[in-house]
């Protein structure tokens, strides 16, 4: 960086507004953290969708969760003869909502391809409240060009959810997108994030020693995976002492439960830099 650059940065810094944040915002921030952790956790299925993150982020944010226009008891079965998607043309746009969340996804693709749009619709097993709703979106890099916008049904949002029931595509959209809608799971099919019952069963292992948790899982015909340390690193059964204690759990399939374990049964803290080593935004002041 040259002196001229430094001088410029100094001038730009002068333009930064000073923000006074009430102390209560810190507590509100802690509450927000808890609320986010209470939303559906990331899953292997979501991680599989690798995306150009900055391009997708706004859209993903718009898809926080959902509320259905569609019946939650839609059966999975042969696709009916009617259209799978509803297309409404507006000037320069195409509005797409799902009419039949049980149809063969290939039909959605064909209908979208007729409009020259490279958009793939996926259907994934979901909890009843998410059936017919957008549960995930991936957007290719648009280079700042036209992009998808969510269609929402604000009257039916859930507490932690978004309300996205479809999307609006500019007709000159030239990137690609993958939009996943929730569908009713098949009998015995694992629902992303686990069913309430599976989560409740897994929760009962919290506070138990590893040997006991193993015995209980085995009695249910299940096995465990282990995560240790503040970075939640995977560990093998042989690496985890039997007297360690489970502090968190998550079902990841019908037969596998992830156990977070530590010697004292508490979630490990990240090693923190000293107070003086922390970087505080220069123009944000508490009080």
């Amino acid at each position, binding site marked *: 960086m040259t002196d001229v650059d430094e001088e410029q940065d100094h001038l730009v810094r*002068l333009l930064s507004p000073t923000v006074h944040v009430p102390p209560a915002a810190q507590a509100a921030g802690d509450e927000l953290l808890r609320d986010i952790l209470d939303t559906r956790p990331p899953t292997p299925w979501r991680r599989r969708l690798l995306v150009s993150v900055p391009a997708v*982020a706004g859209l993903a944010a718009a898809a926080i969760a959902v509320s259905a226009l569609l019946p939650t008891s839609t059966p999975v079965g042969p696709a009916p003869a009617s259209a799978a998607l509803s297309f409404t043309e507006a000037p320069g746009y195409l509005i797409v909502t799902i009419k039949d969340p049980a149809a063969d996804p290939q039909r959605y693709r064909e209908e979208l391809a007729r409009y020259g749009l490279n958009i793939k619709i996926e259907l994934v097993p979901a909890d009843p409240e998410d059936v017919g709703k957008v549960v995930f979106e991936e957007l290719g890099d648009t280079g700042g060009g036209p992009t998808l916008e969510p269609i929402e049904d604000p009257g039916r949002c859930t507490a932690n959810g978004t309300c996205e029931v479809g999307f609006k595509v500019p007709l000159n959209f030239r990137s690609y997108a993958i939009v996943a809608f929730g569908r009713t799971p098949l009998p015995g099919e694992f629902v992303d994030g686990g069913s309430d019952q599976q989560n409740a069963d897994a929760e009962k292992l919290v506070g138990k020693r590893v040997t006991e948790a193993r015995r209980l899982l085995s009695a249910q015909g299940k096995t465990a995976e282990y995560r240790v340390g503040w970075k*939640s690193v995977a560990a093998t059964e042989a690496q985890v002492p039997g007297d360690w204690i489970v502090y968190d759990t998550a079902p990841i399939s019908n037969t596998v439960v992830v156990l977070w374990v530590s010697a004292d049964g508490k979630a490990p803290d990240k090693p923190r830099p000293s107070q003086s080593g922390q970087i505080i935004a220069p123009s944000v002041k508490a009080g």
Partner: protein
Amino acid sequence: MARAPSAARFEALYRDCYQDLLGYALRRVERPEAAADVVADTFLVAWRRIDEIPDDQARPWLFGVARNVLANHQRADRRRADLGARLRRELTEATTIEPAVPPEIAHAFRGLPEGDQEVLRLVAWEGLTAEDLAVALGCSVNAARIRLHRARRRFAEALRSPSLTSRSRSHRD
């Protein structure tokens, strides 16, 4: 409810960056309470994509998400969920004080294309390096350096050019 994979990592990231993200949002929104939505949505995206966040560049990655979230909020200022409701209430008490700077500097800066302004802000206000900038902008480090260089050059030209300054003033005021 069982906590999710990587919950500990997310919590550490949240605690490290909450203050910075809140400051980032507050300096860019008109109503302080709107910053709550930006912070909530940004961290929700981070939670959903926790495994994609680069270990050593989580902070600029979050700014990259926040930029898109902010653009989305500005396109359609709508409420999506109750997430962040308390933070929104608390932030109604937040105050933003515009700095007292010579008007020609502010006019020269505001006359720049929005993209240039944000690149310069990310470096000067958020302390991002060129490498960080690449993460936040979703481009190569080389491209980030070029964008920063061009933004600096245009800002320097604007500062030197009274006519440009007065033109931008007449457009904006």
